Structure formats: C-alpha cells, structure tokens
C-alpha cells in the first residue's frame, strides 16, 4: 500500500484549483512548505498571500477578500487555524457568513515530535460549534485532494482538517467527494465503526482483526463531521445495533460526541468511543503516540469487543 501524507493531498488539490478556478486565492502564515502550498504559489504568485506569523490578521484578510468574489483558502497548522484565531473566525467568517476555506494541517497527535503545544485535539469541537460551519476531516491523500477541490464549490465557511504523517493512500484517485455523505468502506453485521481522518485506516485494520475473532464489523468513513450524515448513521445502526466511534481528537466535542447526540435522540444504542480522554498530547513518533493515546487499531478492537458485549 502506497503511503502519502494528507497535507500533500491538500497541496495537490489547491494546485489544481489554481489552474481551474481563477477566483481561488491562498493565504499562508509562514508555513508554505509544511502546507504544501508551494506549487500554487509558484504557478499563481499574484493570487498567493504570504502574511507572516500573524494568523489573526490572515483570517481577517481572508474574510475581507471574499468581498469582490474571491474564494480564500487559508493555510497553517490546525492549532493556529482554530484555537489561536477562534474569535476572528467566529466574527469575521462564521457570523459574517464569508466564503472562506480554513485549511488546517498537522492536526492531532500524529504531528509527532513537536509535542502538545502544536497538537490540537479540540479543533473539531471548536469548529463544529460555530453555526453553519462545515467541518471535514478526510482520511488519506486522495480523499484530501478531492475534498479540497469540492469545498471550492461550496458557498460558505468550511474547516478542512488534515495531517502530517504519511499514511496508506487507499481511497480511489478519481473519487467524487460529496460534502456530508458518509462512505461505506466495509460491510459487517455485528457492529458499525464510524471513523474519521487517520483513524479510518486503523478502523479497517481493526475490522480484519475482529473478523479473525468472529466479529463482523462494518466500517463507515465519516469524512464530514458537520453536516453529519444522520440518515446513513441511523440506517447502519438499525442493522448492527452497536457502535464504535474512532477519531484522532478529544472525546469531548468530537465525532463520537456528535454521533452519541444523534443516537441518544433517535436510536439509543451501546457506543464505545475511541479518542483522547481529557489530556494533552506529548512528543513522540506518530505511531508511538497513536498507541500510547489509545488511537490505534488495537484500541479500536478492544472498544469493539466491549460494545458487542453490551448489546
């Protein structure tokens, strides 16, 4: 299996947009290389805006640039794309209804060695709480590229979350990315695993192990956390009657939290959640951190066993 980083998927999607959509502009806060925005910059120097290490200003400028029809894509690390500039996003983009795409790399613990100052695990929660904000967390290179291209066509604020490490690139290169549409990746009858981002692959790996243990796990990729594909989730859970959620994010405010809200209203079901439980990350390699913080396939297997026992 070829491995590629999702941030490069963003870079590739942005480069394509530069060639196809003259209204797309890109802004970056001194992380052009890390965000893989160099090709867009080189091909469209007049549409690329280096703002320096000033993320609040970047968000404000992006909001202003929509007036006159531009579609700004901002790029920096996920932490500096959200918690550092929450009020700027809230007032200038979300409340003002501006067509800005907030593109956030190095999300979660898999940023690795830089440690907890840079490993935001609260970003999905912060962003999904903003009215009308679309929140997307694709799972691999191909899907991140497709999502980047798709969000340019969506009128309104979007938060696009991706990461640093090279991970298996397992979804089709020619996929048509539909915002808000859950993707069934593997059929199963005993439980449904709803996963997002890097943990979609870990969930597929977990499903193989579960199969050896005689547990048939369905895997659904929830690349769009908001708007949530309520129908796909309810339909799946009606069949399997048992759920695991998996995300590289804090349990509070994440995907599991959204699915638990939905199911507690519509279809109360045993749920086990794989995510970070009220703690900060730390330095380490991405795989070491996924293991230590209980975010790998092994943790998903344990959660699945528990969930099935609770049926």
């Amino acid at each position, binding site marked *: 299996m070829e491995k590629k980083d999702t941030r490069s998927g963003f870079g590739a999607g942005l480069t394509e947009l530069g060639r196809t959509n003259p209204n797309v*502009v890109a802004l970056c806060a001194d992380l052009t290389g890390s965000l893989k925005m160099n090709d867009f910059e080189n091909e469209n120097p*007049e*549409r690329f*805006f280096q*703002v*320096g290490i*000033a993320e*609040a*200003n*970047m*968000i*404000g*400028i*992006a*909001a*202003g*640039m*929509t*007036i*006159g*029809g*531009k579609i*700004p894509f901002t790029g920096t690390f996920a932490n500096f794309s959200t918690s550092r500039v929450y*009020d*700027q996003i*809230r*007032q*200038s983009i979300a*409340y*003002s*209804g501006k067509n800005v795409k907030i593109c956030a790399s190095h999300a979660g613990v898999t940023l690795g060695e830089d440690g907890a100052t840079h490993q935001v695990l609260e970003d999905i929660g912060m962003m999904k709480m903003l009215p009308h904000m679309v929140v997307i967390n694709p799972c691999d290179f191909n899907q991140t590229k497709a999502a980047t291209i798709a969000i340019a066509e969506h009128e309104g604020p979007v938060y696009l979350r991706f990461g640093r490490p090279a991970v298996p690139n397992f979804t089709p290169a020619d996929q048509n990315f539909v915002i808000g549409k859950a993707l069934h990746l593997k059929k199963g009858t005993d439980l449904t695993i709803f996963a997002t981002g890097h943990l979609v692959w870990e969930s597929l790996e977990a499903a193989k192990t579960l199969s050896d243990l005689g547990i048939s796990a369905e895997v659904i990729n929830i690349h769009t956390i908001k708007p949530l594909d309520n129908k796909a989730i309810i339909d799946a859970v009606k069949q399997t009657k048992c759920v695991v959620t998996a995300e590289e994010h804090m349990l509070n405010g994440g995907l599991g939290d959204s699915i638990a809200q939905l199911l507690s209203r519509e279809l109360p079901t045993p749920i086990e959640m794989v995510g970070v439980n009220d703690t900060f990350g730390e330095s380490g390699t991405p795989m070491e951190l996924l293991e230590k913080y209980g975010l790998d396939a092994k943790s998903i297997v344990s959660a699945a066993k528990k969930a099935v026992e609770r049926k």
Partner: protein
Amino acid sequence: MPNILKLNNIISQVRRDIVRMVHANSSGHPGGSLGCTEFLIALYFNVMNHNTNFSMDAKGEDVFFLSNGHISPVFYSVLARSGYFDVSELATFRKLNSRLQGHPTTHEGLEGIRMASGSLGQGLSNAIGAALTKKLNKDDSIVYSLHGDGELQEGQCWEAFMYAAGKKVDNLIATIDYNKKQIDGSINDVLPMGNLTAKLEAFDWIVLEEYQGNDIESVINTLERAKELSGHGKPVVIIMHTEMGNGVDYMMGTHKWHGSAPNDEQLASALSQNHETLGDY
C-alpha cells in the same frame, strides 16, 4: 465645494437619531457615535463613491469598514439617511427581531453592512482583504476603515499595520478616532499609547493628523488629501482628534457616555441642542 449648510443639517439630524436610538432602549454607545458623526457624514455624503443599491461585492465602488462596531448608532443613522434603508427602521435599534443589532452584522441582511464588527481589532485586517481583492479585480476604488484609539490595544491591529505597509496596500485609508478615552477612563490611565504618530510612521504608513475631527469641512479636506496620497505605494492613516459626545454639552469632556444612555430629561436637553432638520424617524 461641499455644501456645508446642507451637511450641517445632516449632522444635526444624525445626532438626534443617535441620542433617540440609545434613549429608546436605554442601551448603546452615544459618546463615540457623536464624536464620529462628522467623519461618517463626510464619507457617505461627500467623499466616497458608493451605491445605496447595496451589493455585497461592491465592485467599482468605495467600501467602508467600521472596526469599532459599538458606535453602530451613528453608522445606522448615516446609512439610513443616505438611502440604504428606510429611516423608520432606526426605531428598531437593539430590539428583538431587528436588523439593527447592538453591533453591526451582515447576518440580518442589513443593506450597507459588509462585515460584522464589535469584537475589536479585526476591521483593519478585513479592510486589507477587501483592498487586495480590489487590486486583483483591477478596481481602483478605495477602501476606508475607522478604528477606536482604545481599540489599538488589540494586537491584531498591529499585525495589520505591519502587513499593509510591508505589502504596499496603498488603496486603503484607515482613520483612528483619537478621542483619548475608553470605557474605564482616559487612555493614559488605562494603557498609555505613547506617541501614536511616531508609532504609525515607524510602521511605514503615511500619517495625516486631523486636529479638527468635528469640523466637517476640515474632515472632508483631510480625506481628500488622503485620497491624493493613496496609490503611491503606502497605506494612509488619519489620526483624527475628536471629542467624545460632541454636540451634546453634558456628554463632552468625559468618558462616562461611552456606553450609557440618556434619561428622558437628558434626552430633552440633547435634542434642544440639535434641531430637527430632516424629520425625526
């Protein structure tokens, strides 16, 4: 030549609108609104090329951003009096289901508003963005913005000052309402600003001083001078000395009317000092 008599009539009416709006729901910010009345009237009735048939994209027209959104009463009054929406709507200010929210917003679709403001320090960045898009669109209109002096305590303002000069955003004219007061008292007591002119010059902006920010003719002349200086590689900032509460004697010379509303008796006094010229809403 601007028709000063006509503009003075508008000033008197806008001041009445401001104190009546704030009085009607016992909340709002009259002090800064009265201090910037001449400036907003200069922009909307004389200096700016703008279209009251509102379009968010503002192609081919000048744009204004109110960064210190709490002075919404003067903004709403000037927008209504210049024709963006009916003056009768001023009666809904700060009331339930109104488009005239406490602080300006695009959220309710009020004509003339292009960005929410109220949480301070964001408007200069927004104005830079609009100015950059005008350049990309080969639109030689000008982007104007207004900021409180206390607002400059927000760090984002200085990120924006640095960017606009460093990147030669020269189709931008920012104005600082330099009344030297903020909610908790005088700026010198809250957080001394030092030499503002020197600071802005050090950030490589063209700095104009307007010492008579409550004289409409002088404000127009300064804005015209700023327009002449724009387009030459540097952004322009006007440090506009104003009197908070200008035009209502008991509101002047103090910070106490930053965010307080007059009672019935005080309203009567304010109205007696500013005659009805265009018809109250």
